[in-house]
């Protein structure tokens, strides 16, 4: 499923990110890469962007970008 489809509060693992090369770099440098574990925290009041927690950091991603991130929902959710 896509990162945008993950309900707030759930944890998921990134499977793949599809984006143009120079944009992909940005993701990777921020630590968003295959295998990374992120928790979807919330959607902004107007529905876009979304806020995720990666490790110990909070990151805001626009839906148009988050839609390019394929994830697997993790079983544990807290």
């Amino acid at each position, binding site marked *: 499923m896509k990162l945008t489809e993950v309900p707030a509060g759930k944890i998921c693992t990134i499977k793949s990110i599809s984006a143009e090369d120079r944009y992909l770099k940005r993701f*990777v440098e921020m*630590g*968003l890469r295959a295998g990374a574990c992120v928790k979807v925290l919330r959607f*902004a009041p107007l529905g*876009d*962007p979304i806020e995720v927690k990666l490790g110990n950091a*909070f990151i*805001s991603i626009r839906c148009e970008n988050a839609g390019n991130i394929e994830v697997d929902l993790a079983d544990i959710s807290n």
Partner: protein
Amino acid sequence: MEQITVGLTGNPNCGKSCVFNSLTGAKQHVGNYPGVTVEKVEGWCEHKGYRIRIVDLPGTYSISAHSMDEKVARDFVLSDECDVIVNVIDSNNFERNLFLTTQLFELNKPLVAALNMYDVATKNGLEYDKEKIGTFLNGTAVSTVGNKGEGIKELLDAVVYEHNCRREFDNRINYGSDIEERLERLTCLISKEVTAGDEKKARYHALQLLQMDCDINEFGENAAKVAQEAISELNRMYGDNPHILMAEKRYGFISGLFEQTVRKTVEIRHDASDAIDKILLNRVLGLPIFFGMMYLVFKLTFWLGDPVMTVIENGFDLLKGFVNSAWPAGAEGPLQSLIVDGIIGGVGGVVVFLPNIIFLFLAIAVLEDSGYMARAAFLMDRIMKKIGLHGQSFIPMLIGFGCTVPAIMGTRILNERRSRLTTIMILPLISCGARLPIYALIIPAFFPKHLHGFMMWSMYVIGILLAIILAKVLRKTLFKGKNTVMLMELPPYRVPTLRSVFTHMWQKSWLYLKKAGTLILAISIILWAMTSYPKLPEEQTAGMVPKQAQAAELKHTAAGRIATTIEPATKLMGFDYKIGTALLGAFAAKEVFVAQMGIVNSLGDAGAESKPLREKLKEQYTPLQGFCIMLFCLISTPCVATVAICRKETQSWAFAMGQFIGLTVLAFVITAAVYQMGILIT
């Protein structure tokens, strides 16, 4: 005394500026990097007989040079000027921060890692083996608490040590045989291309080529061909471009380092920040709270600023009065007028904005240091995206209702150049405080009472609509380009320290005074000359009452003559030479229009409340002409300070003049169209 130059690097939000302030105290200096708008902050201190010069580089996640900030940071650490690299690392985000560290490590330079916010990390149950981290990085690792000044002495010790111990550098991350082979080949080719002494950097340049971090032709055709081949081969083999594969290896190195040097005793959380966000970013409350906060900033800037502005204005008036009275009788002349009206008036016009700017930067510093600014961008992003901008552009636009000058300076929080330029270009259309006296003069003169509020409101709305349209057009034409990926870190909330807030405020205010001040002053003097010269011979004003004489004199000056000459053009907008002269003078600052209208209509210096001036306007002009005056004032550049600040912030006269001319033409076309259509209808 021998000098050691230190490049201070780190991710955004790693507490780098706290470390910088602790290192240098008040011994700081702000400037700009040549040719770009990136601020260059440096400071110095003395330690163990060395003068240590510290250059605070922009906070970046990598030095791959996507943005101006990254390029500046990369070029500096790569240059021979930089003796030691200090990498500030947020100890609570160790793994993520290390991505930049691995890139710095590969530069083969003396490296000191400062594990910052160490106190919080310890509280969070993290234990670091600093010695081992140092070994891994072929440098020294120390722990610091930037905002409390802890570990700063040790950091300086480490800098001196790394500078003197002359390590042998051959730092490399193993990228696996497939990549290494190709790297080797490229390194060989490049070391032949580069100038002598730079061979050591060859591997780094080879890395750049493979990662597509630089222009592929930078190191010769041969290297470009080999690199291109290597990239496509690797892509075929692994299904990903080399930079992804290499990033994977970097993360491999990082997790190896992490596992061997860090011990976690408790799972870390940012419960407090998340709890605050539950309210501040709440679906229902988030936006109202945001607008409330912005209203506060707005109020703070102008309400706290206004009394001080009055004091400054009065002070300059007193100064003028003093100079006038102290001037030797009988020697009155152009010099006195130049000093009093040109120089003192010009300097006063600059300094008078200072309270606004200081309070604005104070508010911005608090919002930024506390972590709320990033949240504001998060909340507004959706709306700003519609006009092709980023959430962060909203803040300067709001400030623009008060004054365009600090608003343009406020665009510094935007890090993407094209959206920053777009924001700067549209900001003058947000109706600023200086247009208010004009509306206050015109509206009651021409419109019935029940329409006053509506007319005022409509001027603001027209400005906003034009700004939106212009932003969309600019993003589709001049500043085209898809938005870069909008990834933004929302830092954990922190209580801002007084010291860092005041340092930020002071540095920015000083830059304004120094740079914009000189330019604005020069243009004010030119405008003063234009509205004073040439002088009308005295015999021609003989017999006139003083007010009539003043009007006749103004018509005779350069400004008056220009207005008379271009009257055929301004007539299209419904403006006669009187309005034209007033508008020319009003270029110094829009509020001057009211005073100038008073002078050209032989009423002397008139305030906005002046009833006789309104009567006079009503006699001479139609409501349509009144509306056109407001419209032209709204759309054209607010003041000379805007042009100066635009030049300073964009580092380009082309943008500053482009904005000035563009807005003037736009104002002319729209106003003329409205006037001509208005005539047809009525």
